[in-house]
């Protein structure tokens, strides 16, 4: 059964379209990623699915509920926002306690669940300290724990590792994977980190300017780029002339290097070296480059995802986002 079904979802802010007729189906138990640059519309999609924003057009079904069944949806999902949303004057336990009460959990269940989620994210020892004494990673973990308090079927994570150092990021990834596997939880995360989507997600939807431009498993997406590129330095032109095997998809001489596109780089390298050895062709170095989701993004949009300079339109998006956020 589909955990989430979206049909032609559209959100307009005045004359600006933040989400442009997005259709999508996410299976139960899936770890699904919405990948795209800042302002692509990822947070807007999540806000609509969490019933915080009303769509301008289109339909969405979450856990079998339609968007107007607000309270039913809210009880069946957990959400971790992009910006911190903890009360740092309270302890970790009090934050969870508050959440449990807001979701109408009876006292005994609440107490039991607080212990469970605390141990899920390894925060038992810090549970009685004020949140303002927590590190960034600990706050994030507490927020994830809080999102899980009321046994949601779907957990939304909006940029779960934004602003965290690489080590903490890895650490959070492990918790997310663990939840997906052990709790059989459907997880939908947004991110603009390629590695994050690649490492974590079963399927990824690449989003730009409010539209889904590519959808598939990270492997499928990368494979659609043609394959691995092996770049060989040495007597490149000679090598080019003898490489006529049918597993060679493409060969191109670039800056004195022979770039060979194959479906699997690891197994092609020894074969290429063997052919070179047989023909007595000198090989100085071999470099294997596998396509990344970044390449997929560039392929479809013609620009890199991490372009620091936001275009004017992107800045407008940011502004609009900021406006409704208040």
């Amino acid at each position, binding site marked *: 059964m589909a955990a989430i079904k979206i049909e032609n979802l559209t959100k307009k802010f005045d004359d600006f379209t933040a989400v442009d007729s997005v259709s999508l189906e996410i299976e139960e138990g899936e770890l699904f990623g919405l990948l795209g640059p800042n302002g692509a519309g990822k947070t807007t999609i999540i806000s609509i699915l969490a019933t915080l924003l009303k769509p301008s057009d289109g339909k969405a079904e979450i856990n079998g509920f339609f968007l107007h069944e607000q309270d039913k949806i809210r009880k069946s999902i957990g959400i971790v926002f992009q*910006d911190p949303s903890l009360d740092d004057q309270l302890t970790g336990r009090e934050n969870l306690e508050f959440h449990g009460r807001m979701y109408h959990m009876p006292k005994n269940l609440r107490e039991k669940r607080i212990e469970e989620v605390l141990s899920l994210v390894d925060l038992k020892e810090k549970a009685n300290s004020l949140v303002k004494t927590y590190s960034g990673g600990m706050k994030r973990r507490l927020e994830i724990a809080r999102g899980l308090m009321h046994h949601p079927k779907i957990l939304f994570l909006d940029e779960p590792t934004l602003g965290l150092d690489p080590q903490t990021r890895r650490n959070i990834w492990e918790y997310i994977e663990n939840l997906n596997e052990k709790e059989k939880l459907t997880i939908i995360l947004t991110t603009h980190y390629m590695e994050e989507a690649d490492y974590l997600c079963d399927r990824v939807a690449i989003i730009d300017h409010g539209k889904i431009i590519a959808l598939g498993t990270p492997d499928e997406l990368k494979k659609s780029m043609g394959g691995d590129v092996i770049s060989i330095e040495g007597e490149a032109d000679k090598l080019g002339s003898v490489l006529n095997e049918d597993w060679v998809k493409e060969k191109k001489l670039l800056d004195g290097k022979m770039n060979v596109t194959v479906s699997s780089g690891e197994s092609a390298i020894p074969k290429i070296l063997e052919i070179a050895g047989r023909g007595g062709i000198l090989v100085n170095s071999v470099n294997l480059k596998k396509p990344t989701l970044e390449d997929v993004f560039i392929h479809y949009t013609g620009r890199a995802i991490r372009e620091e300079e936001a275009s004017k339109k992107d800045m407008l998006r940011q502004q609009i986002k900021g406006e409704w956020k208040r």
Partner: protein
Amino acid sequence: MISDIYTIWLREMLRTFRARSRIISSLAMPFFWLVFIGVGIGSSFSLPGMNYISFLSPGIIGMILLFNSMFSSLSVIWDRQFGFLKEILVAPVSRTSIVLGKTLGGATMAIVTAFIMLLLEIVLGFVNPSFGIVFAFVFMILTAVCFVSIGLIIASRMESMEGFQMIMSFLIMPVFFLSGALFPLQNTPAWMQFASHFDPLTYGVDGLRGSMIGTSIYPLWIDFTVLSAITLFFIFMGSYMFSKSVR
């Protein structure tokens, strides 16, 4: 609904009592007003039939209720700035429960502080303990809820602390002075008396004075009716404005 209001209220209480020093410091200024203005002015200025400091005592309670209630609504802006508001907004809880919880939270803090001041005034002999204290308590609740609601209306329109502070300084002082907390309104010029009719605190202070020391401009039931009506109006308006501001 009731349990949601209680949850929101409980959090406000936890936060407030964690910052106990704030209660003490919010008592300090009114206390100095009471003692120094009360003794200072009272020494060269007399009211027919009563001590100035006794006259001032209910006014100072009104002052505490006004200041603390208005500033407690700052918590909405805090919650917004620190993101916690989102956690509240995404929960399966109605906007009305959120507003009522916040209102009662702010009002409780103001009432507790005002009650401590009332005890001080009784201990220091400025006010005689009487059955009227029960009525005073009713007026304390009404006044606090009224001004927390007004504060929430302003806070729901404000993005930043700075903007809130500015509105407050232009609102709080006139409301305070016009209420008759410091001087009898009966002897003031007509324009001032006229303006005081539009000040909710006038009825709060008058009601407190009537209950605590037995002198008031209006009969207690008029103070009670007018203040209740104003308070109800602002609760509904606050609830509406807050819901609108968070969509």
